[in-house]
């Protein structure tokens, strides 16, 4: 039976500690541990979301969910920027966003989440494209207004921008 991810992570951390004491830290293994940790973090966030949906009136649970989600914010910003860059290759989507981009930017700036969501949703529906999962995440009410704006601006700058993705 394969070990549970949290057991693997615990073992990995011990291994890293040993490496450090012996003076031979390996960067890939730190990276692996970090990826493992982020996966667990995501899973925790999903479980918490589920718990919050079951018990909406438990404030502490909700606070914890907000905190865990906040931890993953800069990750999501990165993903959204890349999603924007990727979708820019799609001519149909790119043209639709170029036409309506400024209006959507305004909606986001004004914090009108629902209207921004519907405007973007309409673009994907009429282009017969799937609504990206990361973008769904960005609209969840758990994120503060600041984060909502940061997410959407990052996505929009990816898809509206002139630059090609670096790296």
């Amino acid at each position, binding site marked *: 039976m394969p070990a549970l991810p949290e057991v693997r992570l615990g073992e990995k951390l011990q291994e890293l500690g040993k490496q450090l004491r012996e003076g031979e830290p390996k960067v890939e293994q730190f990276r692996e541990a970090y990826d493992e940790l982020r996966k667990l973090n995501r899973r925790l966030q999903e479980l918490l979301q589920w718990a919050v949906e079951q018990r909406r009136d438990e404030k502490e649970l909700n606070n914890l969910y*907000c*905190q865990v989600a*906040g*931890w993953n*914010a*800069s990750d*999501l*910003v990165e993903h959204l*920027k890349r999603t924007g860059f990727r979708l820019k290759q799609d001519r149909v989507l790119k043209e639709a966003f170029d036409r309506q*981009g*400024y209006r959507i*930017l305004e909606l986001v*700036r004004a914090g009108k989440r629902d209207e921004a969501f519907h405007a973007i949703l309409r673009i994907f529906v009429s282009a017969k494209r799937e609504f990206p999962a990361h973008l769904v995440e960005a609209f969840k009410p758990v994120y*503060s207004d*600041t*984060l909502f*704006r*940061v997410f959407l*601006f*990052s996505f*929009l*700058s990816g898809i*509206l*921008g*002139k*630059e090609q993705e670096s790296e």
Partner: protein
Amino acid sequence: MENSLLSREVPMSKITLYPSNWLYNAGVVGLLIVLEELGEQVEKFLIDDGSVHITITKDVDQIFDRWANLSPRSKKGTSLVYGWKDAYYANQTESSIKKRINVLIGGDTKGAKTRQSSPIFSCVFCTVKMKIKKSDATFLNQAFGNILLGSEKSFSNMYWNNSARDFVCPKCEFILMCHHIALTQLSDSSEIFINAPSFKVMYYLNKFAREAFGATSLAEARAKREILAMSVIEYATKIQTTLGVWTGMNIEVVSRREYWIDEKKHVKIEFFSLPYGVIQLLADRRIASLLSQIGEFSILNLVLNQDFSRLMELGYRLLRIGLKDTEWQESEEKFVNQNLRLDRNRKNPAKVAEQIFDLLALIEEKQKRRSTYEYASFA
């Protein structure tokens, strides 16, 4: 060339020092600069717990010469810090200073007499207690920096303790006389020292401040809190061990400025600091490196003011302007030039906007994390 077989054996002395008030701290940092200039590996002396473990392998003459060398001189070449009545360290001579160095590195304690009846004094800097005849004891006075302390009658506002009754133990005397070396002269002619609860933190913060803002550098005049912020950012991005626990304690800029009223010299000492939450943000390596990549003081200042809604608005407007296919209007051009001073940023405001959004996300993450830790520690 040095011949190790023939060279005179210099006794090694080891001293451990702990942070105290800012004047003493500046003295220790000044001493470290003297030793570094003499070729000692000072960085190895700095301990993560905030103390410093100094090993001195140099003799009194070497230390004195370097100390004198690092100190300012008049146009005629005479020292401004010793050797005459109105020097910075008033009424001090080469031999009186050398005696102090000798005491510090483990020589005799200049023959101070103790008797059974002698009172006990406690050093205001290192807190060591000594039985010493009152006439042999040294008290804080203008010998330790006449400009800084003023005369015994007038320094009451210059220093925290309103009296010349502050006992200075023999080992601390030379340390205090190194404080001027740690001060960074700014282009507005004030002098600053960054004070913190750890010598390692102070050593590096002052080093970075000196390199970026010292009078000889071409940097334009900057507000004291910007200098502090930039130094913390440099620390967070360049030094392996993080600022960690020290961010919860006092990190401040001490500024000394001379001014003249009716041909009488006055000295003003001021303190500048940043709110706890701001230091926490700047000490975060990712936030620090993003801020230094952006390199714009307008953006740094919004972070220092914790004005994140204006930061968001700035990002929004730069993004809008940056996305335009058509030529910018005059007002847009003006907005960009007013807010961004670096050429690479002016050419690509959309990229700056993206960096601002990254920054805002990191700040939000950091604040959430902080509230979690605080919650956890009170639970």
